[in-house]
């Protein structure tokens, strides 16, 4: 990464902290290759790597007030990326025991096969509480990532996963009861 480019980052972040959205947009886009390089030191799986990049961007967004423009920006970005990568690896390790994102996705993938009729799908979705419905629509219908859905709904990724999990359980229940009725 060219040093001259990263030299401007503290100034851009200072402007971003003051509310300059354009500077913030430029800075985040410029940071992506650095985040990718830092994350690649810990993660080899490409799909997980891209998830970690998004989670890092979200984390940077949430703690941008903790950055001190007097200090170098790369150690700050590296520490956040490293922590996110370790969390992602830990979560993946637990995925056999806990219902994780992949399992939720697999469950969701069953929906369109069994419910080809759009009206029927809407009926199922209507049976969900509003927040669960919104998250299902964001992640599975609009194909947003968990990080995107979390940013949009101002929730944590863990909360999004939990809402998705509960929504899938509710959909399963209502699917079963409808099946039994027919």
């Amino acid at each position, binding site marked *: 990464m060219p040093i001259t480019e990263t030299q401007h980052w503290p100034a851009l972040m200072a402007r*971003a*902290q*003051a*509310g300059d*959205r*354009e500077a*913030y*947009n430029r800075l*985040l*886009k410029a940071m*992506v290759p650095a985040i*990718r390089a830092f994350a690649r030191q810990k993660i080899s799986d*490409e799909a997980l790597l*891209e998830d970690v*990049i*998004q989670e890092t*961007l*979200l*984390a940077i*967004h*949430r*703690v*941008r*007030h*903790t*950055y*001190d423009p007097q*200090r*170098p920006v790369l*150690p*700050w*970005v*590296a*520490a*956040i990326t490293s*922590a996110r990568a370790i969390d992602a690896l830990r979560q993946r390790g637990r995925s056999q025991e806990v219902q994780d994102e992949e399992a939720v996705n697999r469950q969701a993938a069953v929906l369109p096969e069994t419910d080809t009729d759009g009206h029927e799908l809407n009926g199922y979705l209507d049976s969900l509480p509003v927040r669960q419905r919104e998250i299902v629509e964001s992640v599975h219908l609009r194909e947003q*990532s968990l*990080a*995107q859905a*979390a*940013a*949009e709904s101002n929730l*944590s*990724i*863990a*909360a999004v996963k939990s809402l998705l999990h509960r929504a899938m359980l509710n959909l399963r229940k209502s699917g079963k009861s409808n099946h039994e009725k027919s």
Partner: protein
Amino acid sequence: MRNHDRFIDQLSDSARPVKRLCPTGWRVAAWIALALPCGMVSSWALHSRFTDWSRPDALPALLSLLLSFILGSGAMAGAFTLSLAGRPPVRLKWLGLLALIWLALNLGNMTATLPPGGRQFGEGVHCYLFMLSASLPMMVIAVAALHRSRSLYPGKSLALAGGGIAFMSSMLLSLCHQTHLHMLDFIMHLAAGITIIAVTVLAGRRWIRLD
């Protein structure tokens, strides 16, 4: 390679001006200024006497009080620093050394004579409850302060903050305690410190984790 531009556009569109955190020194000073009076008020009901500093054996107790304050402030500074990404790792060497001196001072300040049966244990329980009641508002203020910065290492940050709170509670206890200690009494002080650290970590984790 996934294109993250849309996501970045979303983030930057929602970005509002943010207030930067104060330097760690100021944060520690603000915490002390707020937490100590609150700790005093919350433990007032268990305040039974004032320490007699005119006693000839008061010097070790006074040194122990000063060390508790330095250790409490140092541990809080460590917790605040550790919560910030990219800051150099906290060096606990000096804090560890001071903690050893504090321990040696307290062990040296123990009396060999035991008070009449049962009183020693009762005194210890009183000290345990005093430290816990003094620490509760300090915990709330520390977790609120750490919630503002969040932490990449919530467990470690909270353990350090818990240690700082335990030493500050011990300092407040020194202001209304005999200048000498009994073994069981001191064990209860240590037990209170461990309880405070455990409660801080367990209660605060959810609030300072960066999700």
